[in-house]
């Protein structure tokens, strides 16, 4: 229960910052995608099952604030969480840069996938070049934020895990 509450709190905070502060603080016109960052980090820390579930919940929360068909972000983050959680099991590296690279690449791929699904549904009329530019800039922005946010998110995830183990 504590883990769920921590996760919900993190997602709501990410959405609030995304819709207020980070609308002003952009990188060459692009905002970071904090919900993508949260979903990817949780998938890295907890594995594919939790990655897919947390991606689904976080994506659905973002979808309900958007004015386009709900479920597209949830679909994107469910698959992204599963893929990142699965790939992480096969990567053996202690490099501190690893989370930064995974978050940056994951965000880039996720936004391209979101753009493709939105385009197929007739909800996006932007050129591929524009979508790729936004995906690249948001991926870069998320990568820049990862060294700041990853330790915090890991502490929150581990803190809630300890509590759960302690109870049993």
């Amino acid at each position, binding site marked *: 229960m504590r883990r769920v509450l921590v996760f919900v709190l993190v997602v709501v905070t990410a959405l*609030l910052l995304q*819709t207020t*502060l980070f609308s002003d*603080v952009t990188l060459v016109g692009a905002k970071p995608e904090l919900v993508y960052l949260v979903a990817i980090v949780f998938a890295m820390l907890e594995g594919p099952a939790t990655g*897919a579930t947390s991606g689904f919940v976080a994506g659905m929360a973002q979808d309900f604030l958007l004015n386009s068909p709900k*479920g597209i972000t949830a679909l994107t983050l469910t698959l992204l969480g*599963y893929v990142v959680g699965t790939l992480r099991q096969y990567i053996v590296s202690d490099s501190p840069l690893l989370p930064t690279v995974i978050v940056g690449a994951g965000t880039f791929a996720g936004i391209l996938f979101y753009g493709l699904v939105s385009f197929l549904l007739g909800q996006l*009329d932007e050129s591929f070049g524009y979508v790729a530019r936004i995906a690249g800039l948001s991926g870069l922005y998320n990568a820049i934020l990862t060294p700041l946010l990853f330790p915090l998110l890991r502490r929150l995830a581990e803190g809630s895990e300890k509590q759960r183990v302690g109870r049993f």
Partner: protein
Amino acid sequence: MVARSRPRSVRLLVVILVSICLAVITIDYRQGEDGPLSGFGRTAIDVMAPLQEGIRDVTRPLGDFFVGITEAGALKNERDELQQQVEEQQTQLAGFSSLEARHLELLEQERLADRVAPASVSALVLGYPPNNFERTITIDRGTADGVAIDMPVIASAGLVGTVTRAATYASTVRLIIDQRSFVTAKIDTGEAAEKVVGGLVGKGDAPMEMDLVAQDAAIDVAGTTGTSPIVYTATYTINDEKGLYPPDVPIGTIERVYDDPAALQKTVTVRPFVDFASLEYVQVLQLKRDAG
């Protein structure tokens, strides 16, 4: 056996979640604002609105600070005591100026609203969409304040957009630069104002595009007075249904005219007057879309 069943259960979980996503997309895509899921969306913006307002109040100085850095392009690292005092005084003055500017902005908005609509309501801009592709804003007025879907929204500089989702205490406004926005507009060319009419569509960060402009329309980009012609909202009635916007609300100025003699129509690009990145207050025009 146990080692095999675990990945299989994870894959089953992913298949279930993806199926739910596809079902949600299909239901919401087909039913839109009338569907069962749109109620959750309205509840979500009602719940988030007060939180956004609180966060906005707290982070606005921080946001302004970063915007300031971006615009200035440099930081001053060393200051002596006298410089600090001067800067503190300047900050105080800037604060007063900012308040005065907001007051003037609201007065101008009300003046424009009074000219084009019998009733309007002022609203505070709470936030922007959580992704990079939508061009919408969330405002702190909803159905409890008389706001309804399809009501036009303006700022002192001109047209902002239209209400596309109205919750009880908050609403979502689609900006005219959103790619799904369409505004019937006319170009003020001086003598033949009503003749040059077209459809204005949003293009995101790029200038808006005005299509369906008659090929023989005379549009002088430099204008007879040395300034580009101004684009205003225009009225239209199709199948006894009026357009969304009241007439004569300024939208922007013409940036370029694409005049291809082989084409059946002209295409005009329009730079909007409103700075959508720094909206603080807007006016919702309480107009009903009556049959014409």
